[in-house]
């Protein structure tokens, strides 16, 4: 099976080359037979990539240590779930995983469009086969997971304990599913440009793919944050590390695209911009893969100085050059069909939304690449830290938050004063009241105060929309409120799913703002000693050291400290933090010691305990109060749910009946 897998990889390479040639030739010569052959080549290529993946999984599950990859990332007694996830745990395997996802996506896109978009499809199939060809070639030639060792070691080296975490098993595939999905809209953009079918049809075909990518990236990023928070023990969930930034960049431009696409659908504007965003998002996900594998940028994650980096650099440069050329020869076909009519309009709000999202993406890219840029220009590597990203992105993020409230409610073309007053009076009042209450409660820091005020405003706009929609259905169909709510969402998935995503964003921003009030205490506590402090809400907490314990369990030696927390005299569950030293069967230490943090989750804040070390019977601990962290996960989950609602297929008939009950805020006063 392993031999079959290795051979399959090489056969897949040939099939992709076949598909590229035949599809492009068929598209050029308008020969349906060649196009059909190209599509069959892609299906075959996808099948052989899948077969190669089965081969690698077989090797991993049967612990065939004659393969270097299997010996490097698993051991005989590794739990089976981590043997499966070791597929994407290392360089070579994760490259094959990229190929697998891309192959399945490309085959699916070709199959779904077998009776549609025929002018575009040869180029779409050819382009996705070309991208697949690149990835399969890189995997087979420069990073082959089927590479053999000269002899067979008795056991493999195992998996780093920090990666033995359920979140770590699913976080990378989620991100890959998101990254790779950007290739399909890119292929459609190329197809539309080449075949000059630049009407709205290609946009309809790519919108769902862009959403797939967006949902997976959202889930992947949030899972990564959660893993960092519970496993790395520094008390936060985001540190603007290059790897984190690499995943954020395509998310930002993808989000911009999902908004600007609406402007093109309704008004025929932003046609050049949309093509550029689709191409840019794909390039950024390739850049992200390049950053994480080439070792050009210093990061806490360790990266190989592997030859894969050079392959990616050439692919990136080639794709960029080809895209610029292709867009430039089609500029005439991309003239807008309408002009911006007024600054107080939905078009303008969406334009600013795009400007801000791309601005954030640019600043993140700039900060991430700054060491390379400064070295090239000034001959010295200069790095920027968290404060760089925060000082730029906090104001831009707040502007974006405000637009989240304004964009969906303001009228198309030109909003009248009456429209603005009707849509925004109540939410704005809510925002100001919340802001004033928080101010009197003692919130004096500018950014969190503004953030929470805006959060209340946006939440107000969303609630108002749901209230109006439910009210309209109740009047028209005489439905009970819960039924009306469910049908409202089910029949207008795109619109109300979007509001649910926005609600998730509001929760997320409110939670981010909470971190401005985090408090950190480094204390040393002997047995029975206690430490009293105030939390960010001004309540008194006492932590009493219940003692250190030392024991052996399974494959590790553990030193644990337990603290008994009391809040305003009320006893709360024990907080336990451990230092673990993994050992092998002879008791020799393996890997470095790892820390398990203790977290008391509450809606207001997490109390986060880290055991730093032990001197005699005294424990050195760090206690963090992290306000509102739970809401980061809640907001992320809500965003993913909203995204799924938007994505869910809806029959044409349903959609029609849904629109009947729709109170479109733009339409009712659009003419005013």
């Amino acid at each position, binding site marked *: 099976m392993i031999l079959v897998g290795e051979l399959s990889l090489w056969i897949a390479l040939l099939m992709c080359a076949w598909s590229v040639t035949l599809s492009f030739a068929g598209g050029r010569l308008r020969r349906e037979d060649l196009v059909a052959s190209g599509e069959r080549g892609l299906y075959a290529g996808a099948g052989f990539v899948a077969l190669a993946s089965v081969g690698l999984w077989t090797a991993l599950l049967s612990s065939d240590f004659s393969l270097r990859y299997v010996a490097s990332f698993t051991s005989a007694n590794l739990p089976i779930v981590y043997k499966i996830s070791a597929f994407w745990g290392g360089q070579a395997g994760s490259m094959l995983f990229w190929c697998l996802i891309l192959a399945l996506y490309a085959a699916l896109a070709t199959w779904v469009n077998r009776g549609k978009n025929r002018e575009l499809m040869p180029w779409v199939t050819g382009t996705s086969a070309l991208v697949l060809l690149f990835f399969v070639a890189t995997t087979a030639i420069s990073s082959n997971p089927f590479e053999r060792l000269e002899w067979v070691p008795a056991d493999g080296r195992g998996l780093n304990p920090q990666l033995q975490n359920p979140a770590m098993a699913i976080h990378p595939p989620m991100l890959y599913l998101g990254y790779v999905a950007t290739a399909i809209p890119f292929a459609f953009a190329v197809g539309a440009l080449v075949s000059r079918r630049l009407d709205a049809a290609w946009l309809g075909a790519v919108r769902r793919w862009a959403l797939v990518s967006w949902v997976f990236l959202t889930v992947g990023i949030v899972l990564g944050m959660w893993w960092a928070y519970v496993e*790395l023990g520094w008390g936060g969930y985001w540190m603007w590390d290059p790897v984190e930034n690499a995943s954020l960049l395509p998310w930002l431009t993808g989000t911009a695209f999902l908004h600007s696409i609406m402007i093109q659908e309704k008004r025929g504007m932003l046609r050049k911009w949309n093509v550029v965003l689709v191409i840019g998002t794909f390039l950024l996900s390739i850049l992200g893969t390049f950053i994480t594998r080439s070792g050009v940028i210093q990061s806490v994650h360790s990266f190989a100085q592997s030859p894969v980096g050079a392959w990616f650099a050439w692919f990136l440069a080639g794709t960029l050059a080809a895209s610029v050329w292709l867009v430039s020869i089609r500029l005439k076909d991309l003239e807008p069909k309408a002009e911006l009519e007024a600054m107080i309009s939905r078009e303008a709000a969406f334009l600013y939304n795009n400007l801000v999202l791309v601005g954030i993406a640019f600043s993140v890219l700039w900060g991430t690449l700054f060491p390379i840029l400064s070295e090239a220009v000034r001959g010295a590597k200069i790095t920027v830290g968290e404060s760089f990203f925060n000082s730029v992105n906090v104001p831009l993020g707040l502007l974006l938050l405000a637009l989240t409230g304004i964009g969906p409610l303001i009228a198309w073309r030109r909003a009248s004063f009456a429209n603005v007053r009707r849509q925004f009076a109540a939410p704005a009042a809510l925002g100001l009241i919340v802001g004033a209450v928080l101010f009197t409660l003692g919130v004096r820091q500018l950014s969190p105060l503004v953030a929470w005020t805006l959060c209340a405003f946006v939440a107000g706009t969303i609630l108002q929309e749901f209230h109006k929609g439910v009210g309209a259905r109740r009047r028209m169909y005489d439905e009970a409120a819960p039924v009306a709510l469910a049908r409202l969402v089910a029949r207008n998935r795109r619109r109300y799913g979007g509001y649910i995503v926005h609600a998730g964003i509001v929760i997320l921003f409110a939670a981010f703002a909470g971190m401005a009030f985090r408090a950190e205490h480094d204390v040393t506590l002997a047995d029975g000693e206690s430490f009293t402090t105030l939390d960010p809400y001004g309540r008194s907490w006492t932590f009493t050291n219940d003692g250190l314990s030392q024991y052996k369990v399974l494959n590790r030696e553990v030193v644990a400290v337990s603290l008994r927390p009391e809040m305003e005299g009320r006893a709360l569950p024990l907080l336990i933090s451990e230092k673990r030293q993994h050992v092998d069967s002879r008791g020799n230490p393996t890997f470095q010691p790892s820390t398990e943090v203790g977290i008391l989750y509450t809606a207001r804040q997490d109390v986060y305990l880290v055991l730093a070390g032990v001197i005699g019977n005294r424990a050195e601990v760090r206690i963090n109060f992290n306000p509102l962290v739970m809401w980061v996960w809640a907001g992320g989950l809500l965003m993913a749910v909203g995204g799924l609602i938007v994505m869910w297929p809806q029959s044409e008939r349903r959609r029609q009946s849904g629109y009947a009950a729709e109170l479109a805020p733009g339409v009712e006063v659009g003419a005013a």
Partner: protein
Amino acid sequence: MHPRNKFIIGGALVLGTAGFLMAGSIRDTGVYFLTPAELQAKVAADPTLRETGVKVGARVVAGSVVRDSGGRQVTFQMTDGTATYTVDYRGIIPDTFSDSVDVVVEGRLGADGTFRATTLLAKCASRYEAAPEGYKPGTREAYERAAAETPATPATDTPR
């Protein structure tokens, strides 16, 4: 005025402000990222660079790590093969820190030649493997060299 021009002015204002903030924070918080050899050369050329915040990326010298029993202080030597500095770090020591790992330290080089670090980042092991120099795939030597850098484990950890 044409609405499009109004938008362009507004957009320029937004981007201009963002650019201004970016430039300002690079000036205020950007720090040199150096290897020990570069640090040595820079300090020789410009002694005022001592007591200026810099970041240094280097490898921990095997056997040089002296941990304070508490776990909030450590001294070690870092090197890039050319220059070597003693580092004194106070703070929580990351789990991934140990002998022979690659670290990034941020801090100041004191007048006594000791680097006082305020942050210590250690690269986490075995994410994507580095190919060592002169590495020939598939040979026993290559595998064992890599194995020596990340010791083998019978990782039967229960899923957490």
